[in-house]
């Protein structure tokens, strides 16, 4: 498995690409990690970093199932919310916040299996619809479990919190872990299986890919990361409310970040999250949900013109800058057009 992952020819004709991408990510990470040392008192900047990294981590996590395997879920708020409440309750019980995040992730991942095993058998769009049902059902349920969740009044959490620098750094670390996981999965045997099943579930299955298993692995991997992010978020806010952490807006934010950034690419969600949070932050005071309008329009444009999102655009711009012609699919020896698929009819 290791040997294979190192040798997969993902970037066609550019065997250096995965390594360059990893180096770039490492450099960027180190650079960003130095920010608190340079500007320790700039609360605005540290908060901006905190939220952006949190979105980056979640966008990357969502993309594992949504992008690689093509199963678009509108229900990740359930994982975020479960993570947030797990951390909240453990923190109130005296745990140090940092120790609660893995537990938050595990709770979310466990829930993702309960939901995923039956729903991931549904084909694409039906899975998406089912996840909306699951997400909203969880929100309403949590709103009604007042003894545990505080219901409509939410839960106030301990007031003694770590510093802004701590939050910034932890969030950056989450993003880095999510990036490493997303990049590793993409280059690994698991990623190959996920991409194969996205393109043709039946063909992948008949070639030995355990599609049900892989879908669930991808789902719970994403759920784990998003759950941990929910925990970190709860610590930061010192307050949890079902309507915020289980909100449909949280779910669709992740969908939008991954789609607009670039479905199934490693850098896409990073780009998507940065732009998403920048627009949201810029418009927050004047018009709280305007970023969703902007993103709705962007999504329409992307679906119509650039299915690979911002990452695809960036790649195109990069090629143009270097003067290289856009890579075309090499034609067959006879130069023939791809022939029509074989004829139908049952044998």
């Amino acid at each position, binding site marked *: 498995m290791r040997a294979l992952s190192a040798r997969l020819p993902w970037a066609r004709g550019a065997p250096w690409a995965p390594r360059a991408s990893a180096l770039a990510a490492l450099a960027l990470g180190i650079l960003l990690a130095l920010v608190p040392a340079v500007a320790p008192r700039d609360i605005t900047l540290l908060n901006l970093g905190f939220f952006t990294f949190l979105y980056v981590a979640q966008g990357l996590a969502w993309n594992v199932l949504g992008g690689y395997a093509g199963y678009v879920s509108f229900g990740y708020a359930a994982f975020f919310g479960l993570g947030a409440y797990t951390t909240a309750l453990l923190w109130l019980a005296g745990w140090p916040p940092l120790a609660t995040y893995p537990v938050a992730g595990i709770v979310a991942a466990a829930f993702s299996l309960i939901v995923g095993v039956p729903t991931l058998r549904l084909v694409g769009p039906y899975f998406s619809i089912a996840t909306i049902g699951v997400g909203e*059902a969880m929100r309403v349920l949590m709103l009604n479990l007042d003894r545990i969740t505080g219901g409509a009044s939410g839960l106030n959490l301990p007031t003694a919190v770590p510093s802004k620098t701590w939050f910034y750094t932890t969030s950056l670390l989450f993003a880095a872990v999510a990036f490493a996981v997303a990049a590793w999965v993409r280059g690994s045997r698991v990623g190959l299986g996920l991409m194969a099943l996205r393109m043709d579930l039946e063909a992948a299955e008949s070639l030995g890919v355990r599609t049900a298993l892989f879908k669930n692995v991808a789902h719970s991997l994403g759920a784990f990361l998003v759950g941990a992010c929910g925990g970190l978020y709860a610590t930061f806010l010192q307050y949890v409310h079902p309507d915020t952490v289980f909100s449909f807006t949280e779910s669709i934010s992740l969908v939008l970040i991954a789609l607009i950034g670039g479905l199934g690419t490693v850098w896409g969600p990073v780009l998507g999250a940065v732009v998403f949070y920048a627009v949201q932050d810029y418009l927050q005071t004047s018009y709280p949900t305007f970023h969703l309008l902007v993103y709705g329009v962007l999504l329409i444009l992307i679906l119509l013109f650039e299915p690979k999102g911002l990452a695809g655009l960036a790649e195109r711009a990069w090629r143009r800058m270097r003067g290289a012609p856009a890579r075309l699919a090499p034609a067959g020896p006879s130069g023939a057009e791809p022939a029509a698929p074989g004829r139908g009819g049952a044998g």
Partner: protein
Amino acid sequence: MLTAPNLISVGIAALLTAGLYAVMSYGLAIIYGVMKVINLSHAGFLMLGAFMTLVYFQRWHLDPLLGALLNLPVFFAAGWVLYAVLVRRVMTSLPIASLLLLFALWLVLQNVALAIWGSEDQSIITAYTYKALPVLGFRIPLTRLLVFGVALATLGVLHFVLGHTYVGKALRATVQDPQAGVLVGIDTERISAVAFGLGTAFAAFAGSLLTLLFSFTPDFGGPFQLKSFTIIVLGGLENFAGVTVGAAILSFVESYAVLFMKASLQNVIAYALLVVALIVMPGGVAQLWTRSRS
């Protein structure tokens, strides 16, 4: 709580709600049936229909019921144009592309509405909003009876249109077998445009009716949309008569369940039913007695 009069009054309420639910879901069923597209912008058109009704009411003192009628041609045109400009372009890609496109459209509609009307609750109060009529010894709000009446009338009209007009027959033929439809000379592009127009028009029409019963905001369509999904899945997705059955099932289950649980949990029933129905009976309720899956 479980007294006989109580059970009967809940039954009446459930029946009335079933009518509303059916009307609310026809648009979704038409679009799914013909185009095999799950219209995630349904909620947006329910909402927009409601707000347009408010606009007609405020500008011209147009009664919401007349507003509903006016919405039909207005939104049919809007749906047609949207199909031609946007939806048509993603019909050849993966099914998920159309789902996402319509989802994006919902986001846009919702936030445009927010920009225009703000996020406060809106409502339309007519002369008859608070009137009630006695039915079987119970006092039933007039608005609910009106909505039910309109629902029945719509059902009749829809039945007539689907059964006796060329467009209706073409629609049904396409639902049953798209390829055969093409073979007998039905222009699928045209029929899809008609279906999307009709679906949009019905959503807006239902949105108008909702204003008689509920207050509304730019994001009020969501729960209704999810319930509509539940209804068409229960109804078997491709079956217009199934919509009525699905609506009745959801409405009765919801209404009677509330006798045993917190009212605020009511929506969970619809959402849970949606997930369960998708998984265990992709052919709708009818599947349960036609044949077991081999």
